[in-house]
Each structure stands twice: as structure tokens, then as C-alpha cells.
């Protein structure tokens, strides 16, 4: 047992390998802590925004102050909105090549393996550092076909009409307190436009990095997939480990038009001092397919329920959710599907793992509107609990206003079996190896849906999470 114990002690600090941070000496601008009208005006000024956006932000701020915190989900009592830097500009220029990115920042992305991944298997990359995107690239052939992949600030300047047409139409400002907050102080994020019929067959990736302490990151993403077009967008997130809390509150809006397909994959691995409170919603038109693949491994508290509103006949929604809650973590995740048209189909598969006192909750909504006849939905949520200190809850909400529907719902909670552990250990596997194998097996039906590179990444992250976790 002594070797296990050593690994366990070592694991306390080494668990999270993205916990490093870089100096802020070169930073261009850092707002003071706290949030008021002046903060918002300052952000808008620094970005030289049009007046309508400034007004939009200020209106959103009023709504943010009016709205109360949600009384469900996770514990938000320690979240102090006045103890956060709302806008931090690490550099005043955006690189088109990694050589243009300041060395201190590039070093971070090198450590995260982003330039390497870009060379190997990505069609485009956006890298956000603190409040703004510091690097952006898109394969030339895609740009030539009219694909737009840029950061939201640039899009507001260069594709104003498109932004104006869709911005905040899927997630209105008053949707919830955090959507209002994001609307007031948003900065960075991705803007993706795929013209009709264009199929982007390899992924576009955005990478979000928080470096400063007490930081708030509020990226805003808008993806428009025109008729018959196709895209796979991937995002990853990490941050240094600090003792005080930071806040990540994004808004992601997606429109998938007739016959289009969009897959949005998240591998969220924030440090354990980050509140991750994100609103993600897509609208799927006739025969469109929207897929959310949502992997939540990091953060102190995540509250995130990617949603698909199926508004056109034959639209489809897939939500695959993987949550891993370790020590001091609460993953309140799940999904929302709304059937608002006939013959729409949806599937939610959620797998959660809790260990070392971690808590995971599945929270899901399935809604079928009157007139959405011939619709089908299947929801499966499985939870695996690794030790008696850990916890798992399931909150499935189902509202059906149409008779002609087929709905399936299954939920299971299992504890890691003593017999399974013993069986594997009797074949020479250590307790950690055995648990890791069982956990990987548990999520394997989901992981195999991921592209190879992300499946490997996901398994690696799970292994890191499992290291020194049992004893």
C-alpha cells in the first residue's frame, strides 16, 4: 500500500497539470475589481463599439442587477461579483501566426499543445487569453468558400449585419442572471458562419485560458450554419490554480438551418477555483441536426445545460454529457430539448462520475409542445459513485403536451463494485488502475462518439483525475 499512498500524497498537488500561470507584467489593460455602469462603458469604449452595442450592454446590466441568483443548482453564496476583474487585455494585437503572439502567452498555448494540434488535425483555431482572442487562424480554402471563423469583437466590426441579425436572438438578455451578466460585459468568444452547402469536415477549435487571479471571462459565441452546411466546433478551457475564485460565464448561441448539421464539443477542464456558469442554446430548423458533446471535468461549480429547440419538422437533437466531480467539485450539468415541431427526435445521454466527496447532478428538461406529433425522445442518465463520501442526484423534468409521441427515460446509479475491483486486482491491476479502467469503461459509450484525438484527450484527463483518488 505504501506506493499507493505516495502516489496519493503526490497527487494532491500534481492532479491538475494546467495549474501554472504566467506573469502579467506585459498586460495592456486590467480593469479594477467590481461591476457598475462605468465598468461596462469602459469595456465598450476600449473596443470602440457602435452605440447600439453599448446600449445593449447597459440595458443588460440593469437586468443583471434586477435578477436574483437561481435558488436551485449549486451553491453560489461565495461568489462575490464585486471581487472580480471584468476586463483584462493581455495584448493589444491579435496574431495571425503564432510568431505574432507575445512570448509569455504563446508559451502557455505551447504547453497546452494548441499549435501542435492545429498542425495535425484542425481547420482553424481561436485562442482566447483573459478577455480577448490573441490568435486566430482559418484554413485558406475554407475562407475562400466563404466560411467565417473569427473572434466576436472582430465580427462585430467586420460582419456587423450578420451579428446584428442574430446576436441575442437565441438567448435573450433576460433569459437568466448570468446571460444578462454576459450580455453586459461580454468580450471575445467565436463567431462562426458556414455558408449554405459548405461542409467543414475537420474541426474548428477555440481555446479559452484564464491566467489572472480573480478574473472574469465572458466570451460570447455565435454560430450560424446555413442550409445544408456542416461544422464541428470544439472548445477547451483551463486556468491556473489560485486560492480565490474566478468566474467564467459564457453565452453560446447557435442557429442550424434546414438540413444543416452542427456538432459542438466542449472539454472543460477549469481549475477547481472557477465558477463555470454558462448558457448554451441552439435552434434546429427543418431536418437539421444539432449535437452537443459536453465534457465537464474541471471547475468548482458548473451549472450548464446545453439546449436544443427543434423548431422545424424532422429536426434532431443529440446531447452527450460527461461529468466528473472530484474533491470540492459540484457538476450540475445535463441538457434541455424542446420539441416544437412535428417528427422531431432527440436523445440525451448523460454519464456522471463522483469521487472523493464530489457531487454530480443531472438536470434535464424534455419538453414536447402541442402539435409536435410523431416526435421521439430518449433520455438515459447513468451515474457512477466511487466512494461513500460522494454524491449523485438526478433531476429530470418532463413536460409533454402532445399525445402522439414516443418517450423513453432511463436512469441508473451504481457504486463502483467491490467485486469488479477485486476481479481486476486479482489480475495484477492496482486499485487506481482498476478504478480507472472501470471508469473509462463506464464512459466508453460516450467517448467512442468523439473524434479520435478528443477521445484520447478525454481518457487522459480521466486518468489524471483518477490518479491518487482512491485509497
Amino acid at each position, binding site marked *: 500500500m505504501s506506493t499507493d499512498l505516495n502516489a496519493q500524497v503526490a497527487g494532491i498537488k500534481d492532479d491538475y497539470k494546467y495549474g501554472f500561470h504566467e506573469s502579467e507584467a506585459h498586460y495592456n489593460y486590467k480593469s479594477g475589481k467590481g461591476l457598475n455602469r462605468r465598468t461596462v462603458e469602459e469595456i465598450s469604449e476600449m473596443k470602440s463599439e457602435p452605440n447600439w452595442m453599448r446600449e445593449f450592454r447597459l440595458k443588460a446590466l440593469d437586468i443583471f442587477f434586477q435578477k436574483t441568483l437561481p435558488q436551485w443548482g449549486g451553491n453560489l453564496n461565495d461568489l462575490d461579483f464585486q471581487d472580480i476583474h471584468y476586463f483584462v487585455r493581455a495584448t493589444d494585437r491579435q496574431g495571425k501566426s503564432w510568431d505574432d503572439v507575445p512570448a509569455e502567452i504563446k508559451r502557455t498555448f505551447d504547453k497546452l499543445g494548441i499549435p501542435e494540434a492545429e498542425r495535425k488535425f484542425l481547420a482553424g483555431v481561436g485562442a482566447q487569453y483573459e478577455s480577448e482572442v490573441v490568435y486566430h487562424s482559418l484554413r485558406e480554402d475554407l475562407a475562400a468558400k466563404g466560411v467565417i471563423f473569427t473572434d466576436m469583437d472582430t465580427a462585430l466590426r467586420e460582419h456587423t449585419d450578420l451579428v446584428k441579425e442574430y446576436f441575442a436572438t437565441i438567448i435573450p438578455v433576460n433569459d437568466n442572471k448570468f446571460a444578462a451578466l454576459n450580455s453586459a460585459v461580454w468580450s471575445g468568444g467565436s463567431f462562426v458562419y458556414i455558408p449554405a452547402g459548405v461542409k467543414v469536415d475537420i474541426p474548428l477549435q477555440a481555446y479559452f485560458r484564464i491566467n489572472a487571479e480573480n478574473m472574469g471571462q465572458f466570451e460570447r459565441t455565435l454560430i450560424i450554419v446555413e442550409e445544408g452546411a456542416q461544422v464541428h466546433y470544439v472548445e477547451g478551457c483551463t486556468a491556473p490554480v489560485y486560492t480565490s475564485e474566478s468566474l467564467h460565464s459564457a453565452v453560446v448561441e447557435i442557429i442550424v438551418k434546414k438540413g444543416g448539421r452542427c456538432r459542438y464539443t466542449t472539454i472543460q477542464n477549469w481549475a477547481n477555483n472557477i465558477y463555470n456558469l454558462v448558457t448554451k442554446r441552439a435552434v434546429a430548423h427543418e431536418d437539421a441536426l444539432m449535437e452537443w458533446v459536453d465534457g465537464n471535468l474541471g471547475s468548482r461549480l458548473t451549472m450548464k445545460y446545453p439546449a436544443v429547440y427543434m423548431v422545424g419538422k424532422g429536426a434532431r437533437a443529440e446531447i452527450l454529457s460527461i461529468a466528473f466531480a472530484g474533491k470540492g467539485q459540484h457538476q450540475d450539468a445535463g441538457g434541455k430539448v424542446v420539441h416544437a415541431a412535428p417528427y422531431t427526435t432527440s436523445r440525451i445521454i448523460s454519464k456522471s462520475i463522483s469521487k472523493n466527496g464530489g457531487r454530480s447532478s443531472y438536470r434535464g428538461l424534455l419538453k414536447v409542445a402541442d402539435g409536435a406529433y410523431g416526435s421521439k425522445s430518449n433520455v438515459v442518465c447513468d451515474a457512477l459513485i466511487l466512494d461513500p463520501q460522494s454524491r449523485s442526484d438526478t433531476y429530470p423534468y418532463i413536460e409533454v403536451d402532445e399525445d402522439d409521441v414516443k418517450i423513453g427515460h432511463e436512469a441508473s446509479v451504481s457504486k463502483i463494485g467491490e467485486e469488479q475491483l*477485486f476481479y481486476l*486486482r486479482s*489480475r*495484477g*491491476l*492496482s486499485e487506481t*488502475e482498476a478504478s480507472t*479502467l472501470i471508469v473509462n*469503461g463506464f464512459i*466508453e459509450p460516450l467517448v467512442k462518439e468523439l473524434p479520435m484525438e478528443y477521445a484520447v484527450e478525454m481518457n487522459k484527463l480521466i486518468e489524471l483525475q483518477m490518479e491518487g483518488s482512491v485509497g
Partner: protein
Amino acid sequence: MSRKSLRIENLHVSVEGKSILRGVNLTINQGETHALMGPNGSGKSTLSYALMGHPNYEITDGTAFLGDINLLEIEPDERAKAGLFLAFQYPTSIPGVTMANFLRHAVTNVRMPDRKEGEDLISMRDFRKELKQKMDELGMDSEFARRYLNEGFSGGEKKRAEVLQLAMLQPAFAILDETDSGLDIDAVRVVSEGVNRVAKAQGTGVLVITHYQRILNYIQPQFVHILYGGKIVENGGPELVTTLEREGYDWIRAKYPNEAQVEDELESTVLTS
């Protein structure tokens, strides 16, 4: 290769506070084949679980050594690395974990006991080749390697899978816990041949736990022991099997009245393994 022994002395084992084994003595040398017989609930499976280190089986007295290694002081995975193998009567299933992935971890750990966690596994190419060969020998379809471990396996497939693991791990000592139960006669033959092949090549010491003579026609023991009332009451050669087959356990019962009483007590609180 120097021959090792598996030496069990005065072993007492309790499960949930209930005393099941009450002083078992048994020595097996590498290269030997032993059979352990006994009625239901006599403690045969308890012995195999206790030797492998199941956390629910409490050793209250006695010793068990594999060579000079004290088995009772080490974890199940270390026992496997020391050369002990148990073919389970009821192998558990592990959803999502393929046979091949699991076996590659197991084989790596057992063959390279000093490897540190996180270091490379044995080469995929060599492993696949060896696995394919062993599966062919056991008449297993190569698709088997991609199936999830014991998930949805028939009774016969599970037993074959256990013997495949035995063949891959090449232990110094193997305990086969009711490996013949649930198998038809052809399967018993194939599985037995598999065990014999490993035993011959590796000089494995084999302990066959069984109710029936059938498997012993294929895996022929030099030594036969009868476990009754938590003790080994009879030691002999193959002739003991014939006697049991002919006369059942009644004569044992008559000959060992104290153990018979223990057996009856245990019977009334039937233990499921």
C-alpha cells in the same frame, strides 16, 4: 527454474463474522495437479477467495506462502504478480472495458512487476499476436478480444475467457474454481486442454475445485483432497474421486461426525459466492 510451493497451514477464515475455514492444511508444488472436492458450502470457494485476497474474507489464523512470499500480507494485485491465479466461478462483468485492453494491462503488470504506473504497456503488436494464438488454441473467435469483459457472455464463454486469462498470465499456481460448471462436454475438453497446455509449459501447480469427476478425466490430478466442515479431512490419490463418485459424501459424514455438525450449521446459513 527452481520449483516453488504453495503452502497453506492451519488456515482459518471468516466471512461476516462467520467461521468457514477451520484449519486448512495443503501444500502444492509447482508441476503438480491437485483436486479439491467437497459438498456445497464446505468452504471450497472460500479457500480460493481467501488465498486471492478478497476483502470480505477475514483470515483469523494460519499462514499461506507462495515460495517465500507471505501471501496474507500483500494485496490481491501483488499476489497476482507473485504468480497466483484464480479462475473465478462467477467472473464479474466490466462494461465498456474490452477483453484485449484489460488483458494488456493485466499481462503487463504480471510480467513486469517492477514497472511503475503510467509507464508503457507491453507492445501492442506482440501482445495481439500472442492473444490471437492463445484464442485460436481455445477455439475462440478473434472478435472475442473486442467484446466487453464478461459482458453478456454465456456461461461457457465466461469459463473460456477465464482460461484464456490463465494462458496469457502463465502463473506459477492456478486455482480453478468450478471451471467445469455450466460447460457441455466438448467445452470441458477444450478448456481442460487449455489448462493442461499452460501447466505443462509453465510447470504451473494446479488446484482444481470441483463437485464432479467429469473435469478430472481431462485434468488428471495426482492428489485429491476432500474439504468438509471447513477442514481437509481426506487426502489421497485419484482413487478418492472414484470412491466419492460411487458412494457420495455419506461415508465422510459418518466418519467425521464433528465436521458433519459444522457442515449442517453452515448449510442452514447458505453462503452465496
